[in-house]
């Protein structure tokens, strides 16, 4: 017995050694191409970096952390969405399959705008980005496409939404994807802001917001969305730290009611690398946050302090 055990532990040791070596080797092989900085600039708001790793081009804010990838696309297949969270955003189409007016707050590389324009060539798409330098970089390095109906403006998202409401505008789909270096700016997380956003929706209009799942803010953020929209879908991917919140002006239908669109949507979205069946599977009405969490307001929004 004893001898046997020893042998086993020895062989275990060598096995794990082999495993470690293989992993290192695999890691080395999987990154044969060094990331190359294509463009770098310091804007009024941040350091902007465009990096090429082989075929993959990424937009980064600030340099040190790896978490700061804002937008990526494959140079050979610019239509294919690379980022997981952008794919999750398409859950919105199961609720509202034909948006005619789309508002995107937070441009990044403009990949979402490009994809939506191809999907809905007649839809009006407005991109709002606070940093003019990001718009410039999107145009220059990410093939960000603009025409009469696909536009961009360098503005603060909150101001744009307030003014748009005053002008009587309404949108079928509002995508909230504004990030500064750390997280979503504080004034774009409050109950008042979400109420303004909700007021800007058409009757069947929806909001999809890109958030992170791992932070103390999770509970506060969830409670705030609940307070404004009532029940909302969470769309998460287990591999990912992103969580999409999908909410509507009206109460959202149960999942069973969304299945009708699924097959048609699957074929439409496939060319863009979006597997809507997977996205559908990860949609949930679960309330997995602390129910007594306080709501973030313009008066109380220590968002970025909590996000640590």
């Amino acid at each position: 017995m004893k001898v046997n055990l020893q042998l086993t532990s020895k062989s275990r040791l060598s096995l794990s050694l082999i495993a470690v070596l293989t992993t290192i080797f695999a890691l080395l092989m999987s990154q044969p191409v060094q990331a190359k900085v294509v463009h770098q600039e310091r804007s009024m708001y941040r350091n902007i970096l465009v990096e090429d790793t082989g075929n993959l081009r990424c937009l980064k804010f600030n340099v040190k952390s790896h978490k700061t990838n804002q937008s990526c696309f494959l140079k050979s297949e610019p239509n294919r969405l690379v980022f997981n969270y952008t794919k999750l955003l398409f859950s919105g189409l199961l609720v509202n399959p034909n948006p005619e007016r789309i508002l995107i707050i937070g441009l990044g590389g403009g990949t979402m705008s490009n994809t939506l324009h191809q999907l809905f060539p007649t839809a009006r798409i407005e991109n709002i980005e606070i940093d003019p330098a990001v718009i410039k970089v999107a145009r220059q390095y990410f093939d960000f496409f603009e025409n009469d109906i696909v536009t961009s403006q360098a503005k603060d998202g909150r101001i744009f939404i307030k003014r748009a409401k005053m002008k009587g505008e309404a949108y079928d789909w509002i995508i909230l994807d504004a990030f500064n270096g750390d997280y979503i700016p504080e004034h774009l997380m409050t109950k008042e802001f979400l109420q303004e956003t909700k007021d800007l929706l058409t009757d069947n209009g929806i909001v999809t917001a890109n958030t992170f799942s791992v932070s103390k803010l999770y509970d506060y953020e969830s409670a705030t969305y609940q307070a404004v929209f009532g029940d909302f879908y969470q769309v998460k991917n287990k591999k990912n730290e992103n969580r999409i919140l999908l909410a509507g002006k009206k109460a959202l239908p149960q999942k069973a009611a969304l299945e009708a669109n699924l097959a048609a949507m699957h074929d439409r979205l496939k060319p863009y690398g979006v597997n809507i069946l997977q996205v559908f599977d990860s949609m949930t009405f679960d309330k997995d946050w602390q129910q007594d969490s306080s709501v973030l307001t313009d008066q109380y929004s220590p968002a970025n302090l909590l996000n640590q």
Partner: protein
Amino acid sequence: MTFRGQNLFIYLLAFTSGFSIMGVELLGGRILAPFFGSSVHIWGSIITVFMLSLSIGYLIGGKLSTRNANLFRYGLIFLVAGCLVMPIAYFANPIMEAIFLQIEDSRYGSLVASMALFFFPTIVLGMISPYSVRLLVTSKEESGQIAGILYFVSTLGSALGTIITSFYFVLYFEVNDIITAFSLILVFLGLAAITLGRKQLASQAAQEPVDQHGKKSQNNASNEVIHES
């Protein structure tokens, strides 16, 4: 003339005013954001208005200190400052909404809003530093040193007001509660200075020379003029 610990009391008041000025300025960014956003020019507007008001406040405070400077009047400045800070909490939204509707460009919108909200209270808060120097200085030789200590104390207050407000207060309190607290503290300190100042004036009056006919002399200043000639 002065009570024991008066200088310490004045330094404490100057510290508190420094603390409040920067606390309010920091919250200014928060207050403006819902209407004017968080673009870089928001801070441009806020800082411009604070610097402008402080500069005007220094000028007025210095001028005021040349005539009958006393603790009573010093307290009045705090009282007025406290009362002017209060509306930031209670009327900011309607004021900003009106400006938002009138001015489309958020640069000038935020500048006008900062003026409307912070211009007057900060002018009055700015008056405190030169007035403090006047109350503290007793001789020409020490005036520079006193001014140095005063700037040290009030600017240290500003530093702490900035960090404590941004690191901790916003975590535990609503913006309006913090503003209200600043306002009440200023009012309270003002009332304290007014009370002490009145006592001082009363005892001063009792000590004033009485002439043959039993009337008090009109005022010290006119006496001094006579001596000078």
